[in-house]
């Protein structure tokens, strides 16, 4: 099942619903890269609240998504990392740098608003 990606103003919101296979992770990456260009998005929010495990592959893919997005001018924020997932990630030294993280969708939107404020686009 592909990850649904919602467009909300200047931002894209990808909400992961269940554990992803490696192919689905790659699809998500391509999908997002494609839509950033199409919608001229300034920010991406990826909600991982439904994930019980974030392994090194997922972590690397998320980093790659963020790098890709940043090359196309968008900031990526990960939201909804569960406490035990956070602990496990730290213990396995899975790094999400340079990704931004936020507690939930609301926080992420506020973060992106702060980030994009000041360099708003013409007519936006």
């Amino acid at each position, binding site marked *: 099942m592909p990850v649904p990606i919602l467009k909300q103003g200047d931002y894209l919101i990808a909400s992961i619903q269940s554990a992803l296979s490696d192919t689905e992770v790659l699809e998500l990456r391509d999908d997002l890269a494609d839509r950033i260009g199409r919608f001229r998005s300034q920010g991406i929010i990826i909600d991982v609240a439904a994930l019980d495990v974030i392994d090194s592959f997922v972590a690397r893919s998320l980093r790659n998504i963020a790098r890709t997005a940043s090359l196309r001018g968008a900031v990526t924020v*990960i*939201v909804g*990392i*569960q*406490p*035990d*997932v*956070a*602990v496990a*990630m*730290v*213990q396995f030294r899975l790094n*999400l740098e340079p990704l931004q*993280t*936020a*507690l*939930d969708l609301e*926080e992420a939107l506020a973060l992106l608003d702060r980030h994009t404020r000041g360099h708003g686009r013409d007519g936006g």
Partner: protein
Amino acid sequence: MNDHEEDPMSEEDGSVGPPLQAPEIDAALLAELVAYLREHRPELREAWVERINEAQLLRVMSSEEVFTEMTAVYDNYVDALETGSIETLRAYARSLSERIIHRGVETHEVLGIVLLLRDVLARALFIHHQGDPDLLYRVLDAYEPAANRIAVTVGVSFVDERERVIREQQAAIRELSTPVLQVRGRLLILPIIGVLDSQRARQLTEQLLGAIQANRAKVVVIDITGVASVDVTVANHLVQTVEASRLMGASAILTGLSSGIAQTLVDLGVDLGSMRTVGDLQGGLEEAERLLGYRVIQEGDPVLAPQD
């Protein structure tokens, strides 16, 4: 005749190893032995306490205390020899352990004093029955198993008691587990007091992350003023806690690093570069308020000024 001796023995020793093989124990002989030990109580006790001092055992206790306690041990010891029942002795050993454990008496000291008593008494028997090797043999046959059993009982009681104390203290530490307090909207403080080990650090991290989620916290101030020492392990735990908080979208501020701890961390080469540190809790709270956009303004005179 032997039943009197055998029964409690096999019963009691079941838990501490194979029952001591009690050969023909002569109750009359044992009674005579006990009578002898009672009769020579003053000098035997004296010799024993002297050897305890020589061996430098129980140095945390004053000599009067040692003397009083050892008198009680001696009497209980002889009673146990006489009756073959170690219940009273066990109870006494427990209460003695309870009193001395907190003062830092070690297991080897307790075993040492009991074994010394056994040696002192055995030597007295040697001297007493010097002229009659056969009798000496039989007396020792009666004495040794009982004495060994007593030594085992005292040692096991002490260790049991010590384990009980340790368990209680561990439970107390867990009870003391660190509270996570909300001081303002979206601002939590986590005052850590006492010793941080891996288990506690893990528990603490879980609590903190749960609280971040529940209170939607943006900033967490971790105060370690009450942590006596920080080593590499603890420092790494702190770094992990901070990183995990960041994954949950909260910034952590570490406060209360004493100058000693700061120097230790630098000497150890622990990299706390990824952490935001502030000298004390007040500074940490001010920094947190700044991050959250609060401004604290004092209005008028302090209320604590004397009123007319």
